[in-house]
């Protein structure tokens, strides 16, 4: 890893990171409040048959328990947007963006191997994702404390939720970075990574809303991010293994392909 490049990569993202982390804290804070204010009303709605239960069981979460509500918050499109800014946007721009702008030339004219560049950018991305994930969970923890819900949840499991969430988003970032090192333009890398993310999200949401195809969730990486299960002490090690594999495959692809690629003059 190159420390100067690492710090500069973080510096490029510092204002974006501050804004996203602040928004993530706010969103995290809101979830326990939503749960406190609306869970009874939601339960009554379901019991009265006004709306089907599935509509309140978004993804792997639900609005009837605190862990379920926190899970919804962590799988909500808003969270996807917060994390996606770095897991998709920054990962895709990391190499293909530099290539498109022509600055990869200047960077790789230094004594930096392509693998070092990859490792450095990947490390910076993990730090960025970790900060946003920590902001989300930190916001939730503050919200739980403010609402006096500490007795409904064991916050000691939060580090494991953090690890699980970070692994999920690192898997998407690893895919984005693999796409980034494979293309000369950001557009195809972005398209591919967005498609990967959306297909995963679609499979998770589809399975949760339509019980006949609940099996589809198994094929979504989002289904292996289970904060609700972890917070109730039922973490499945297989989820972590699957996410680790989902990280390892694009990483291996990138470290093999990137150094072997020809980087022709920018057109």
């Amino acid at each position, binding site marked *: 890893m190159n420390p100067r490049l690492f710090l500069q990569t973080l510096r490029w993202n510092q204002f974006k990171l501050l804004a996203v982390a602040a928004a993530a804290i706010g969103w995290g804070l809101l979830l326990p409040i939503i749960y406190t204010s609306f869970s009874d009303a939601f339960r009554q709605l379901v019991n009265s048959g006004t709306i089907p239960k599935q509509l309140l069981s978004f993804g792997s979460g639900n609005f009837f328990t605190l862990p379920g509500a926190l899970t919804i918050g962590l799988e909500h499109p808003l969270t996807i947007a917060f994390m996606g800014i770095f897991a998709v946007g920054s990962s895709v721009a990391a190499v293909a963006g530099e290539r498109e702008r022509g600055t990869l*030339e200047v960077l790789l004219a230094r*004594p*930096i191997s392509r693998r070092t560049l990859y490792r450095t950018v990947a490390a910076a991305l993990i730090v960025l994702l970790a900060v946003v994930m920590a902001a989300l969970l930190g916001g939730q923890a503050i919200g739980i404390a403010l609402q006096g819900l500490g007795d409904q949840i064991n916050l000691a499991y939060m580090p494991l939720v953090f690890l699980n969430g970070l692994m999920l988003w690192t898997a998407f970032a690893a895919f984005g970075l693999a796409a980034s090192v494979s293309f000369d333009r950001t557009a195809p890398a972005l398209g591919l990574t967005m498609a990967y993310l959306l297909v995963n999200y679609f499979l998770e949401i589809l399975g949760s809303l339509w019980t006949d195809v609940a099996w589809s969730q198994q094929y979504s990486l989002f289904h292996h991010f289970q904060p609700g299960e972890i917070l109730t002490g039922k973490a499945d090690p297989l989820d972590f293994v699957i996410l680790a594999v989902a990280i390892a495959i694009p990483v291996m692809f990138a470290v093999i392909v990137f150094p072997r690629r020809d980087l*022709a*003059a920018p057109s």
Partner: protein
Amino acid sequence: MSAMGAGPGQVITAQGLTKHYGNVRALVDLTLDVRPGEIFGFLGPNGAGKSTMIRTLLGFLHPTRGTATVLGLDISTDSVEIRGRVGYLPGGIALYDSLSGRDALDYLVDLQGREPVRREELCERLQMADGVLKRRVRDYSRGMRQKIGVIQALQHDPELAILDEPTEGLDPLMQHAFYGIMEDLRAQGRTIFFSSHILSEVERVCDRVAIIRAGHLMALQDVDELLARRKRKVQLRWRGAAPDLSGVPGIADVVIKGDEMRATLLGEVAPFVRAIASPSLEDLTIEPARLEEAFLEYYAGDEASEEMRG
């Protein structure tokens, strides 16, 4: 061709270097060497393979066939070490727009892992004052960006500078300053590999020149040697009887119109001057041999030659 092959102690050697992009043959069996302390011109029109050669030497591209060394290091295995000892100016350089000129230079020299020992001198010679360096790169003109490009390539005093079209975008005054910098670097024993499609600047500053056409090396020669073998145009005017040039070696294409004569002269000038020396001689013009003539010979019938003349 002369000076072919890869001798020991050369700064750059290439042996049969070949690069194909699918069916496109960008470099074909290129063999050359660059000697320590010389300014080496790599001449060819756009698309001839100049940038491909440079990018292959620096590890951006992997050769299809052949081998090459830079500073005695293999381009296939020691690319990182090579880039640590080389200064590189890419053609049409792009910089980090959000940084100031100074921050961009600091960042790049930090990544290089060397001290910017030449920066101050280069900034002064290229007229990049402190006030200019404080401005963001996005506010720079093309010429100013190019100057930052030159400075970033040379600020750490590399043993070898590889410069791709370095005067692109520089005004004539700055081009002149740049030529001065190159000559000083040569005087201090640095080596410069310099690609260009501008014949006059290659002729002006380079010790040796390689001419490349469609990926093939057409010529590799000392510039002086190359010029000495070019035909010069001569023109003279006299009073009275025409001078007898029949015994002058190398004289050809003689056209006499009244009391004026035009001809071409290949080789030594002295026999010609002796033959025309007479009180009746009124005027004499001997045009210097130009690289353009040599270049056009290699590019005869090629549209690219028109591009290079400009």
